[in-house]
């Protein structure tokens, strides 16, 4: 174990030295490993003020759970032929990465269907086995990049989303409130459809509700309520129907002017894992190709209208 660590540390130092000296690709024959790439990720984060934490702090400052930013599959000592950044390492993304010989996947979301990528319960599952065998056959290494990427300021995931939407922040310290020319909930939802290229945009609330201040929120009702404090409506990625949609249904019945625009998780978060993440990694990994892999919009809507 210590031999491996020493070798990795030595290689990382060598890699960093080469980079610092010339910013040029490595000498032929020296093999960059997945572990070395991730060491560079950590170093680059630290340079930007994000120190690596095994237990990243919660928004209030209290220590959170153990980070999910770890290797999920494959050998960290494996040589890297290319790096793929993606929102989620779905089976299709693994195929595309393998076809492009990008064997290190940096993924924002889990690979094996739970936040911790705990695979104990799925060892005999045929889809787990197929996905794992495919990854092993193509010598893929999967590393998750969630907690620490969200800690970069401004958060690259939400910055890329709102850039895509063309929404401006108020700049008045209201955090995640975006000022829009006076419009309605339905018109805002249609704008989201067009700019994010997806049909699966759902609204709960009065479609004619006036909107000039939008909030953006992740996936829980509590985070959505916090985001709504200073906004007319919230754009939410993957709202749960059993709590969030029900809450906004009730808000409408009570004539409270609160609306929600729900989009899928990937439409919310994929933008920040594509070019912004790939460009960032490429800036300190010049030896191999670094490319974003799109997840695509998973969902389509029934054609009844």
């Amino acid at each position, binding site marked *: 174990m210590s031999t491996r660590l020493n070798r990795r540390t030595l290689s990382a130092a060598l890699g960093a030295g080469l980079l610092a000296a010339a910013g040029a690709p490595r000498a032929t024959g020296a093999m960059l490993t997945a572990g070395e790439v991730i060491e560079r990720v950590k170093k680059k984060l630290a340079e930007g003020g994000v120190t690596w934490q095994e237990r990243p702090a919660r928004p209030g400052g209290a220590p959170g759970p153990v980070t999910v930013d770890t290797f999920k599959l494959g050998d960290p000592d494996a040589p890297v032929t290319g790096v793929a950044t993606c929102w*989620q390492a*779905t*089976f*299709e993304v693994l*195929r595309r990465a393998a076809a492009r010989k990008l064997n290190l996947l940096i993924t924002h*979301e*889990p690979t094996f*269907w*739970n936040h911790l990528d705990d695979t104990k*319960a*799925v060892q005999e*599952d045929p*889809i787990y086995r*197929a*996905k794992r065998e495919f990854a092993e056959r193509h010598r893929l290494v999967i590393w998750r990049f969630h907690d620490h990427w969200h800690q970069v300021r401004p958060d690259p995931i939400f910055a890329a989303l709102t850039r895509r939407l063309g929404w401006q922040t108020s700049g008045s310290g209201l955090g995640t409130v975006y000022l829009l020319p006076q419009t309605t*909930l339905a*018109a805002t*939802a*249609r704008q989201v459809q067009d700019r994010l290229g997806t*049909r*699966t*945009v*759902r*609204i*709960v609330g009065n*479609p004619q509700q006036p909107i000039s201040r939008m909030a953006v929120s992740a996936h*829980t*009702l*509590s*985070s959505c*309520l*916090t985001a709504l404090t200073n906004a007319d409506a919230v754009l939410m990625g*993957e709202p*749960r*129907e*059993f*709590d*969030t*949609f*029900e*809450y*906004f*249904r*009730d*808000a409408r*019945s*009570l004539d*409270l002017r609160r609306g929600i625009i*729900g989009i*899928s*998780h*990937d439409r919310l978060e994929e933008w920040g894992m594509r070019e912004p993440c790939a460009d960032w990694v490429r800036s300190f990994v010049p030896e191999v190709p670094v490319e974003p892999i799109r997840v695509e919009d*998973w*969902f*389509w*809507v*029934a*054609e*009844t*209208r």
Partner: protein
Amino acid sequence: MADPEKATVVVRRLVAALGTTAKEAPYEGFCAGDPELPVQRAACCFSPTVEVLRRAAAEKRTLVIAREHPFYTHGTFYASGTEAALKEDPVARAKRELIASGGLVVYRLSSLWDQARPGAQATALARALDWRPEPTGEARREVVCRIPTTSLGALAASIERRLGAHTVRGVGDRSLPVSRVAVLTGYVDVPTCAAATRDPRVDAVIAGDACEWEGAEYLKDVVDSGRKFGVLYAGFVATELPGTAVMARWLRSSLPELDVSLISVAEPARLP
């Protein structure tokens, strides 16, 4: 005429009639209002929305028996933080006042029903779609139905029309031929999705909603695995309503002295 029974007594009889020894999950059982209230009339509903509570109060249906929780705490994971966030919230406050002023008590009947009647919700949904579930030898949450061959896209449209839903979403090739469907309702987790897709002859799954880094990612990987397979998410509410109607009928037959009416709710979401 005898004095009306208290809500606690009615619920005790209801649970006895269900014949289950299972325990309620967190956020189930009595959720709001006074369980000692005398009950002459009851309402059965899927989600105890503001509209449902208003109607129950207007009709003096003191006991509201719901599949869901009035304060949006569906289960432990997602409830974390919700209770604190709702403490001063105007929607929760108005709902609490509505329950108090309407003289209502809300009882959530969810996992007890599911454990006493495995597959009841899915069977009800299949029947609402005019499908006949294949007999199964074991207690399972999903039912499997053979249907006249159609495409996944056409099936999505037909389900949307039949259920009066508005936001049916599909994953997979719209032109995929489908003739054997596993039917699930509500929110589905990974073990549920894995069980429903275990039979390789199943070429589509219908569910309500799923987490996109859990069950929905699993089903996407089934689609991506190369198997001819598709998924339709017909909505949490739309898939659970047929089973709620069955639950209301069962309540009427099991508690014949109680006036129980079903108060239906519409799917809350729309496409813009």
